[in-house]
């Protein structure tokens, strides 16, 4: 240790030669300054906190360089396992139906809506485009045959990214543990994990996401290694690469946020250590801070925004996602009825209109042939807000008293007019009364009432233009209007709450007695059809890019939290995952079909689980030994620091990628665990290797060495053998199901919950 310390101080002095000897003696009595003199002064520090934990340098002399042969072996094996039988089965598997379809949308430049950010699907689309897929395959439902379409390009792209994960794991563990054998164990666990193979072989976002996550961790670890040479070229390279990978991770799925947290925490710790280094001037610290802000915040942000810019630039045609967005947004899309729209400019009586809520991702005022159920206000027809375009969104504007006939030249609707809105399909009037609304109990219920437009006085609404004066006409698309109920004085309101099953999970519409102007109570007239009026081309205000960005994020977040588990669907729970409780059917159910089942290799997964416990015990022993200052040899000390530092980062990664799922209300699936599994596997490599190397704690040298070799061989063998017996999960099974004899998986259904 002593030698290292000298090296380090020498290095620092090279940078900060200005610090005088005088100043240093002034600082030495204080705990922060004695970073490298812990051994003799620990007694005083222990009561004061844990500064001794953050200050040590851990570059031991025994660090091993990457072994080229091993790296090539890992690379070769991981590509071989991922690309083997890649084109099988030649039909859509599981979520390929979504992501393949979205890739096609990019090729066709059709606008769509998805809850994930666009990068992953852009890359899939790009991969398909480059390999000659023309975007014509409809991707209707799982099981559809691809036929002559070029699907292997997209699968190959995902598989290539998935194949790099073991290599990344190798380098990360090597960097954290300085041991080739630990790195090899971690890589082997991933290479021969059936789950990782399966999830890499199909057109999914997960391999892309995991590629960026592991890339970010690798660059972060590499960056940490450059600590002693700040601001040199490789330091910058790894810093910027970390940033790039972070933006990639968050650009594929919001789960990427967790790796950002991991890197953020690591960076914060790093900066804290730098701040405590009194040999660095404040200017130097500021430089460090600025460099990290640039590389880890500004750069990723820029890239992330660029991805969205590309997304919006590419998708310029109207498609299935239009209704989720505001009228202004839709006017950008070629083929949308608002693109270069021409319609009557002012709202008139007798027009057919759609009314859209101004809340971001607010729906169209909607009604349909279904009544509110018993016990939910009056049993009248439901009125909801609906996000999709539909004939049931059409309403007719009437004067309160008039019948169906209108004068030749329609009269304009003006601010303050009292109108009656008749639902075109069901001829019921928009109605409200003093009954509780279904979800928002403080509001009143809104229903469809009457027939053929004849109702009662509760069907009358006063239309007001926000900021308008009496007599102002209502501009289509541009005016914000409110509908005030004449009888009760409440205002038509969309709460944003989702109705239960009886309401088809559409959004609640109520009449709010609180008259504050909020986007929830403001609406605009979107479509306007009136054959008696001349159509005028409307150049709707094109929204600013940042507005589109914000809007699409709010829509995505809403969509994500809207993915609630349905009663009939199987909802996987987070505690199922580490114990490999239940996998996912990728393809095929029956005996005759080609079946692929996403399930981690049980041996490696249970080993991972056990190693989490083992790690907890080992790290507890190691830190207590250090805290009590038990006499330890140099090698043992290094092991302790590998466990605490390296293992700590991996455990943090695992926790960050796992624990938040417990707090998520949305529907969860088994494959959400895979990023956490990567961290867990790396931790297993590090833990087991340290354990095996500590065998000489209780065995004499030659035997300890034998035990080490034996342990490594047994571990590799059991991983290989378990892969051999479980490989049909990934590479496809045919024939009888596992509980029958004669199946390839006979006797391997170790848990009743596995469905193969």
């Amino acid at each position: 240790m002593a030698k290292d310390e000298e090296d380090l101080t020498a290095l620092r002095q090279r940078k900060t030669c200005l610090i005088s000897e005088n100043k240093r003696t002034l600082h030495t009595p204080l705990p922060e300054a004695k970073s490298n003199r812990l051994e003799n002064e620990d007694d005083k520090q222990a009561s004061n906190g844990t500064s001794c934990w953050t200050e040590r340098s851990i570059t031991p002399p025994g660090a091993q360089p990457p072994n080229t042969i091993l790296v090539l072996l890992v690379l070769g094996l991981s590509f071989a396992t991922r690309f083997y039988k890649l084109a099988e089965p030649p039909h859509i598997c599981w979520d390929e139906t979504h992501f393949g379809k979205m890739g096609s949308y990019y090729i066709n430049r059709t606008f769509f809506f998805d809850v994930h950010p666009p990068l992953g699907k852009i890359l899939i689309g790009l991969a398909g485009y480059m390999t000659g897929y023309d975007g014509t395959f409809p991707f209707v439902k799982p099981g559809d045959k691809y036929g002559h379409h070029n699907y292997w390009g997209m699968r190959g792209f995902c598989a290539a990214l998935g194949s790099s994960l073991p290599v990344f794991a190798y380098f990360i563990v090597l960097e954290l543990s300085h041991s080739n054998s630990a790195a090899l164990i971690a890589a082997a666990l991933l290479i021969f994990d059936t789950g990782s193979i399966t999830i890499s072989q199909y057109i999914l976002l997960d391999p892309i996401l995991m590629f960026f996550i592991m890339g970010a961790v690798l660059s972060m670890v590499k960056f940490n290694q450059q600590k002693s040479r700040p601001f040199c070229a490789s330091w910058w390279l790894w810093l910027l690469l970390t940033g790039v990978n972070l933006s990639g991770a968050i650009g594929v799925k919001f789960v990427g946020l967790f790796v950002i947290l991991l890197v953020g925490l690591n960076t914060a710790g790093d900066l804290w250590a730098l701040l405590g280094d009194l040999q660095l001037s404040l200017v130097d610290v500021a430089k460090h801070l600025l460099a990290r802000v640039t590389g880890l915040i500004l750069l990723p942000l820029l890239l992330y925004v660029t991805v969205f810019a590309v997304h919006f630039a590419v998708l310029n045609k109207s498609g299935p996602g239009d209704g989720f967005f505001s009228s202004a947004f839709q006017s950008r899309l070629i083929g949308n009825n608002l693109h270069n729209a021409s319609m009557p400019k002012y709202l008139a009586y007798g027009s057919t209109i759609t009314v859209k809520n101004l809340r971001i991702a607010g729906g169209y005022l909607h009604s349909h042939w279904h009544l509110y159920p018993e016990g939910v206000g009056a049993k009248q027809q439901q009125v909801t807000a609906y996000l999709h375009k539909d004939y049931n969104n059409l309403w007719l504007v009437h004067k309160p008293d008039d019948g169906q006939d209108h004068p030749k030249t329609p009269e304009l609707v003006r601010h303050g007019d009292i109108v009656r809105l008749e639902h075109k399909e069901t001829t019921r009037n928009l109605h409200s009364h003093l009954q509780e609304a279904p979800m928002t109990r403080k509001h009143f219920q809104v229903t469809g009432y009457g027939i053929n437009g004849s109702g009662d006085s509760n069907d009358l609404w006063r239309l007001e233009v926000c900021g308008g004066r009496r007599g102002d006409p209502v501009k289509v698309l541009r005016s914000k209007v409110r509908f005030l109920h004449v009888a009760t004085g409440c205002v038509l309101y969309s709460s944003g709450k989702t109705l239960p099953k009886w309401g088809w999970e559409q959004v609640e519409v109520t009449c709010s007695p609180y008259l504050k102007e909020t986007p929830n109570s403001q609406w605009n007239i979107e479509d306007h059809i009136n054959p008696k009026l001349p159509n005028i081309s409307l150049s709707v205000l094109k929204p600013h890019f940042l507005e589109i960005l914000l809007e699409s994020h709010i829509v995505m977040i809403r969509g994500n939290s809207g993915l609630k588990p349905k009663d009939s669907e199987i909802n996987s729970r987070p505690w199922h995952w580490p114990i490999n409780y239940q996998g996912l059917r990728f393809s095929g159910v029956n005996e005759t079909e080609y079946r692929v089942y996403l399930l981690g290799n049980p041996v490696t997964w249970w080993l991972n689980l056990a190693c989490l416990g083992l790690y907890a015990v080992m790290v507890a022993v190691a830190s207590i030994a250090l805290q009590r200052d038990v006499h330890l040899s140099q090698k043992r000390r290094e092991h302790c620091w590998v466990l605490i530092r390296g293992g700590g980062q991996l455990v943090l990664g695992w926790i960050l990628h796992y624990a938040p799922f417990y707090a998520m209300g949305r529907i969860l699936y088994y494959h959400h665990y895979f990023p956490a599994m990567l961290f867990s596997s790396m931790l297993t490599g590090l833990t087991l290797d340290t354990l095996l190397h500590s065998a000489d704690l209780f065995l004499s040298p030659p035997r300890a060495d034998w035990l080490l070799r034996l342990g490594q061989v047994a571990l590799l063998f059991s991983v290989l053998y378990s892969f051999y017996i479980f490989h049909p999960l990934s590479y496809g099974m045919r024939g009888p199901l596992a509980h029958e004899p004669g199946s390839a998986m006979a006797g391997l259904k170790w848990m009743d919950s596995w469905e193969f």
Partner: protein
Amino acid sequence: MSKEPTSSILLQAGTMLGLSSLKFPPVVKTEINLVLVLVTVLGFWTRLRNLSYPRAVVFDEVYYGQFVSLYMKRVFFVDESGPPLGHMILAFGAYLGGFDGNFPWNRIGAEYPSSMSVWGLRLLPAVCGALCVPLAYLLQLELGSSHYAALGASLLILMENSLIVQSRFMLLESVLIFFQLLSFFSYWRFYNASNSCSRYLWLIVAASSCAGAVGVKYVGVFTYLLLLGIASVHTWQLIGQRAVSHLRVFVECGCRAVCLVVLPVLLYVLCFYVHLTVLRHSGPHDQLMSSAFQASLEGGLSRITRGQPLEVAYGSQVTLRSSASQTIPCWLHSHKANYPIRYEDGRGSSHQQQVTCYPFKDVNNWWIIKDPGRQELVVNTPPRPVRHGDVIQLLHGMTSRFLNSHDVAAPMSPHAQEVSGYIDFNVSMVMQNLWRVDISNREAESEVWKTIVSDVRLVHVNTSAALKLSGGTLPEWGFGQLEVVADRVSRAHHSSLVWNVEEHRYGTSHEQKEREVELHSPTHIDVHPNISFLSKFIELQRKMLTVKQEESEHKYSSCPLEWISMTTNIVYWLHHSTNAQIHLIGNLVSWSMANLSLAAYQLLALWYLLRRRRAIRDITEASWCQFQRVGVVCVGGWLVNFLPFFLMENTLFLYHYLPAYTFLLQLLPAVLEHAHTHLLSGKSQHRAGCVSAFAGLCSVYLCYKSFSPLTYGSPELSANQLQALRWQPSWDILYRRP
């Protein structure tokens, strides 16, 4: 403790009991802190004054009251809102006051009858609320503040209108806050005490009050975790002390672990034990529980099942209850009505007899277990019990139809198979009525199918689908009963697939007519199913955590962000004819000062941290330690009692913020004192600081005074006066139009 105040009153920390060696006669010397006594008396006066006014149900008393009544009648109930300790404390108060449990608790504002001791109902929460005042004083001292700061802290608690309101009624927050303060106070007492064994008494008090806090409300868990965190940091420091021997460290760590981890768990379980021992009669929530649990309660199911034969045999007559985890129980049922030939969506059915799940006891719930190889429907002597893996037929008792399933889509869940009572229409639909008995808890119980205790899946032999409660409801043709289907056994264990025998008797009649008479007659005979306390505890705890509260929006519900600025209030009670009313409104002055102190503390902490990192010491090590302590307890306590609410989905009210706010309130005097000793320099600045602190205290008092009519409900204010009290436009203050 820090510096001694120069006041003329005798101020000494705490009440010290010292045995003056072993002379005769033994002499006990006590020193009494008069300030502490004074604030305690004031605390009792503010909380207990005129406690039985109003003599009407106030706000959530209507909710807790029903449970108190059930305790008085010793009737079992399940309340998903919290563990039972809180309810038991309220019930204990009611018991002392002689309440007999006869009050309907149907609406807020209902008058209590004159025979009822309202005082008794409200006494214990009020006492807990009053004790919070001296506790705040003591806690502040333990944190290293001066007596002035301690006095300030207790006065702020004393004059906090919201805490007063919440303490004066039969509500649980004041009890929770009391336990929380007590646990922190006694833990720090333990930590500050010199190394004697008796200090472990304080640790035990801390651990018990943690258990109390968790036992009153689940949110207490977070306070407990914070305390555990502080304790583990302290223990970690102890481990790092190399002067202490290994053995000593080991013993200390062991003791702390036992006190802080094992003891609270035991106490928590103990309060369930008392709960379950007291409540021994069956009651309104029986049906949520498993049959075995119900059978352990007096009355209800146990009256029905008393004396049933234990082992199900061929020829047994049984009712099959679904174990699905839903709020209403139901029993496998069939009746003389067939599935419609075509459903509304155009799909066809088998048109055979309906099989449903029916949420009421009915003679049509009886089924007879038949051996497929034999004809008779009576139990042989000796009875041949049904075992795991046996194949049986189930015959509907009243209509003599066999339980059947086939490859026809079920009415409401088309992905599953229809289950019917088989009718041979001669349309080449063969009878498929063999079911395999699959006892899923056979390891724990036995291979033999037992009444109540065995969890059974009925697996259809031909299609290996299992009988399942789908969760759907049949439309009018099915009389709105619940749908039963046969579905693939997808998961190892799912409660909707599991059934158990609830009522059971051995069939004796050979003829259908006799059998119908037999089915109509009540069951009899005798054995008592045993269920251990531990399994009852686990079942009850799981039910309490999983039963979903009905999501409803309340008029006065609010979201956590509104609490910080107190833009919301709750009307607790309004006199039926006058303007007298009680509101949950905090003391706006101390509320905003506490928020300011939070901001100031955070800025200061950040400043110190950064400066210390650069080895610039603005304050001494000791004051920095004290600064940290105050932060950990006050800011930490605020955070752990506040942040969890952002993740909660149930209806939230302003009173949920009170525990967090109590901790925040403690921060204010500590920050002021810190500023006074470290930031202000010179006599004039010190004097200005003192004056402004005094002025702050005065304005807190004025605010308390002006809102006290809304706190105590008297005197009645005029509409104008009420209008004037509406300091925040969003507050709801009611007044009658003249």
